[in-house]
């Protein structure tokens, strides 16, 4: 009897929390997620980052749990509790679990919408990264974790809605780091053709260039750019996704599933911005590849992610710099109360775009950011799911 587990889970839940959980694959391949907390004195049931387990035994007093998270044995139960302990009442809290394209989502709220409803009309845009191949996706081993003293919304918003920072100032040196030695920034055309999508409900958003590989190539180099836009496997992805736009021609895509799950299709980094209070996040980043991609392609994804989108990445280094400085500025009384501009693309979205479904604006837009902040505000203020839930 074996189980693999990760603790805490890479989770994205509509409730922003800091709860550690254990994610366990069961014998029937289903996945369970439960709170990493013994119901006796609250000790963690696992302190391993990953591995195999036959049981989870609390190291405090030895309460033992099976891999589904059920309390099965209590030391000296007969003597200490005189058989008055109902073990079925004292198992760790179980989360609702659902998956989409291999992504595992956990949620504590029984009243919350189903994952299917929750993802709203954003699924075609998720599929660009996670549904390219019949074989599905797999993660390259290792999760990189680091902390940034900033509010989670800065990171979530940027991946949701901010192509603007990549095309203007933030990542100029990151772009330069990947240029051939005889090319300088003056020779680089920053793309302008593309779109942004704002989910009908839920605060999710994405943006992408169309037919302009400039930014993707600057991040991932020619080999991956060719692989995801022009290779026979990219053509196969187009066939699978029913459109060469979704399979090959959307480039340099950024995306956030509200609140804290973000990824970059084509770069293939995925991360959760775990909030640690209002002023800090713990980033958990890993790399996803198609399970049946050639080994040399998986290796290239690995190397380019380490080079670009990681704590030491030539792109990501500069993101943290912006977010922590903004967070510091907001400590000021006046700074916190000063109105900021988030009007880009206002009134310019359409739901009748000829190529892309949903609410669409230009690639340099803040429509999805407005969607994220509006949804966050509703999450904070609506009294219940009755008024908050997506309309059917």
């Amino acid at each position, binding site marked *: 009897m074996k189980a693999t587990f990760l603790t805490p889970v890479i989770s994205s839940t509509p409730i922003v929390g800091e709860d550690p959980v254990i994610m366990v694959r069961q014998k029937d391949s289903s996945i369970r997620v439960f709170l990493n907390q013994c119901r006796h004195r609250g000790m963690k049931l696992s*302190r*391993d*980052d*990953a*591995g195999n387990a036959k049981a989870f035994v609390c190291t405090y007093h030895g309460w033992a749990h099976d891999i589904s998270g059920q309390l099965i044995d209590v030391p000296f139960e007969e003597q200490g509790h005189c058989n008055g302990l109902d073990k079925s009442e004292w198992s760790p809290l179980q989360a609702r679990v659902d998956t989409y394209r291999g992504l595992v989502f956990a949620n504590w709220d029984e009243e919350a919408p189903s994952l299917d409803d929750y993802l709203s009309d954003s699924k075609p845009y998720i599929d660009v990264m996670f549904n390219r191949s019949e074989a599905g996706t797999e993660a*390259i*081993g*290792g*999760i*990189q*974790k*680091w*902390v*940034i*003293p*900033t509010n989670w919304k800065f990171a979530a918003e940027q991946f949701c809605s901010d192509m603007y920072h990549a095309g203007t*100032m*933030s990542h*100029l*040196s*990151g772009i*330069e*780091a*990947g*240029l051939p*030695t005889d090319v300088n920034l003056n020779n680089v055309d920053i793309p302008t053709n593309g779109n942004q999508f704002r989910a009908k409900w839920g605060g999710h958003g994405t943006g992408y260039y169309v037919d302009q590989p400039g930014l993707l190539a600057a991040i991932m180099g020619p080999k991956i750019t060719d692989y995801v836009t022009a290779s026979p496997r990219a053509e196969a992805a187009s066939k699978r996704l029913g459109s060469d736009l979704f399979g090959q021609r959307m480039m340099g895509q950024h995306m956030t599933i509200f609140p804290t799950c973000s990824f970059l299709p084509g770069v293939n980094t995925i991360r959760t911005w775990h909030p640690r209070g209002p002023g800090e996040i*713990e980033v958990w980043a*890993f*790399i996803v590849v198609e399970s049946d991609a050639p080994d040399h392609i998986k*290796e290239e994804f*690995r*190397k380019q*992610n*380490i*080079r670009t989108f*990681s*704590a*030491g990445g*030539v792109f*990501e*280094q*500069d993101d*943290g*710099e*912006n977010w*922590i*400085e903004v967070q*510091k500025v907001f400590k000021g009384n006046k700074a916190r109360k000063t109105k900021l501009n988030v009007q880009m693309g206002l009134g310019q979205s359409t739901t009748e775009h000829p190529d892309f479904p949903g609410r669409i604006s230009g690639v340099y837009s803040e429509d999805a950011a407005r969607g994220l902040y509006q949804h966050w505000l509703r999450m904070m203020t609506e009294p219940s799911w009755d008024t908050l839930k997506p309309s059917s």
Partner: protein
Amino acid sequence: MAFHIDINQLVSTPAPDLALQHEVEQFYYREALLLDNIQYEDWFGLLDDDIHYFMPIRRNRMQRYGKVRSTDVPEYTSEHEFAHFDEDKATMTGRLRKLLSDYSWSENPASRTRHTVSNVIITPGEENGTLNVCSSFIVYRNRLETQVDLFAGERHDILRRADNTLGFKIAKRTILIDQSTILSNNLSIFF
């Protein structure tokens, strides 16, 4: 495949003669001086053409996965997994180019760092003219107004004799950082 560092061999190999120990330590002190004074180009000049600059991710694992702390157990990500750094000359050159640009915001203004290197243990290299050197480091970083980061760890270098001012080039550097979750907003400095 996990990368392999043999701690028992390091412990049991006799210390080299004083002159060599002195020379290697002086190399490290001067290398640290270059890094701490943001002499990036001079520091990059110490990296040999076949440089492999590698920092695996470190994980919390129960001891049942391996009896002693070792690079053979899955505490460290292996060579084909995610890492903090896994660089060759070309990607290091790109990193240099970033640092030398006017818009490398994570190091402009530059961090104030102090690289302290000690516990230098030298063993013979496999290739002629090379040394395997294990050392400990503590890197203090202060940045902007109040940011303070402290990094500690172990470096396993292959140093190669070179006809340069400092007498060596770095052919390989494996950095075992003493953090599982990196307690800093980025890794924009070198170790």
